């Protein structure tokens, strides 16, 4: 498989510079909050935006080289870009959209994406899921060397999203080209990509497999982005182990040495809930009332004091938990990770 390579690409944006080096073989997800430079990265690769400096290459092919002044126009780069709102041509039929690139007969792609029956329909008549399939068919009919997906699931409702995510996963597994997808949702990224890069304000914070990011987030932002609870407090040594006095006064034990002000990451799945105090004194326990209960399919997320815990719907029913009720949330010392603190990025509009 080819490798898409971004080398020290620099793009001045309104409030920060996007500075990026990234290798894309197989499927990579670029995740980050809105306005962190994700879409800009895709536009730079596609040639729709010119960086100030850096290089963009696909194997030996140079698409952009700031130092040598080489800039390939978008039409000369074999790139498939699926826009967030799909950008289907509204004045053309589905077939005309897919045929637009003039590389392949449309039929094969219409069939492959199960939109043959919509060949004569206009994009305005399609559902969100259908539009996405047409957009994918159109992008792949171009016979791209690289596929770029901008928030492929953001324009879909929750119900469609689950189905489309599974379909997209299978499609990406079949494709033999580098895929870079952009999303603000870590779960989507983890479901679709082999490697995930977290980008904040134009810089990569961490790259790894989804599992690696969850197991060892480099900083508080990556930790909370991957879904962890963040607890802050003062660490001190105690009988050869480390304790942390949290801001609310609770003392917890952690498995790694630390001191001073620290941030701890605890994943919701590592927290157990009970109505009685746990017998195991090695466990960290937070005793607090349930603030909210949110059902997510077969899993339920409960906010308990400073943390969120995720349990099965079955456990919820068995324990008979209700909002307002005080419970014991417990987790192992080894279930906490000390992470570097980072200023949370200022929220900004646009990507």
């Amino acid at each position, binding site marked *: 498989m080819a490798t898409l390579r971004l080398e020290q690409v620099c793009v001045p944006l309104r409030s920060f510079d996007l500075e990026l080096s990234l290798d894309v073989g197989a499927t990579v997800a670029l995740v980050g909050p809105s306005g962190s430079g994700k879409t800009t990265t895709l*536009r730079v690769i*596609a*040639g*729709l935006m010119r960086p100030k400096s850096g290089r963009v290459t696909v194997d030996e092919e140079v698409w952009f080289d700031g130092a040598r002044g080489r800039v390939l*126009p*978008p*039409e000369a*780069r074999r*790139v*498939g*870009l699926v*826009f967030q*709102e799909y*950008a*289907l*041509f*509204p*004045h053309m039929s589905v077939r005309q959209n897919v045929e*637009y*690139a*003039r*590389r392949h007969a449309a039929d094969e792609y219409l069939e492959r994406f199960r939109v043959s029956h919509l060949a004569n329909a*206009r994009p*305005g008549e399609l559902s969100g899921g259908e539009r996405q399939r047409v957009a994918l068919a*159109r*992008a792949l009919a*171009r016979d791209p060397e690289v596929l770029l997906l901008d928030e492929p699931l953001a324009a879909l409702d929750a119900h469609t999203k689950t189905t489309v995510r599974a379909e997209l996963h299978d499609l990406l597994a079949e494709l033999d080209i580098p895929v870079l997808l952009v999303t603000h949702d870590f779960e989507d990224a983890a479901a679709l990509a082999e490697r995930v890069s977290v980008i904040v304000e134009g810089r990569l914070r961490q790259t790894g497999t989804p599992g690696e990011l969850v197991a060892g987030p480099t900083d508080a932002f990556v930790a909370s982005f991957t879904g962890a609870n963040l607890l802050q407090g003062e660490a001190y040594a105690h009988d050869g182990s480390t304790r942390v006095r949290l801001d609310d006064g609770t003392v917890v034990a952690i498995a790694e040495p630390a001191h001073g002000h620290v941030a701890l990451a605890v994943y919701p799945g590592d927290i157990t809930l009970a109505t009685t105090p746990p017998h195991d004194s090695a466990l960290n326990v937070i005793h607090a009332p349930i603030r909210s209960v949110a059902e997510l399919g077969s899993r339920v997320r409960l906010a308990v004091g400073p943390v969120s815990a995720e349990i099965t719907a079955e456990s919820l029913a068995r324990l008979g938990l209700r909002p307002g009720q005080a419970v014991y949330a417990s987790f192992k010392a080894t279930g906490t990770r000390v992470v570097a603190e980072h200023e949370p990025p200022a929220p900004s509009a646009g990507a």
Partner: protein
Amino acid sequence: MRAVFAVCAAAAVAFLALPVVAIFLRVPPGALVAQLTEPAARDALLVSLKTNAIAQALVLGIGTPAAYVLATNRFRGRSLVLTLVELPLVLPPAVAGIGLLAAFGRLGLLGSSLSTFGISLPFTQTAVTMAVAYVASPLYIRQAIAAFEATDPNLAAASRTLGAGPFRTFFRVVLPLARGGLIAGLALSFARGLGEFGATIMFAGSLQKVTQTLPLAIYAQFNLPEGFNAALAMGGALVVFSIVLLAGLHIGLSWQRSDSNRSVSLFGLSTSS
């Protein structure tokens, strides 16, 4: 309350429609056709059609790319440029005419340079075409800019990533999407050009067969004794032409609307869904 509003509406409609109705009440259809076969009317009609056709072709051919450039580029002084483009809209036609003379007349800004090449513009058919283009093109360009600005830039971007160069992108994606707005603009420009009087009479004069357009011929007939009916007949011809144009425009727009999910308004307040 409702009654007052209804009376206002009735008064407005009556006031706007009455002069047009009066023309056709005074001139029976047979007389209208007969008058149009008179040499003065026939010549004026030919001059009008020829100069307007050439002027609108120029407006379309040069105005469209110009509008696209202005719509898609952000540069210093852009709003100044846009104001300059729209300026002829607010100029009284007589001022436009004297301005054209001051620029292209024998003693004008470019007049002497033009005359060294043996070119003299005033009082020629070219001058009529220029006067029409001058007063009418801003209507088209303004509307075209709005239409281009309303097209989703991501669609042009998508076209480029699908391997189409800037030209193919413009003709296959941008132009079809802006079509409704462009048709509306062209119709307004055509209507304005067809009725053009002040700038033409100052810059091109009113010579039968050469520079006398229908509006100028109407005025000339009106000044003749017994010429009122001939003037009315020519007026009727212009009205019929304008109605055909307006109807064509509405048909064109409703076609555009059903054709895609974009809606286009006549006066540049285009929205895309």
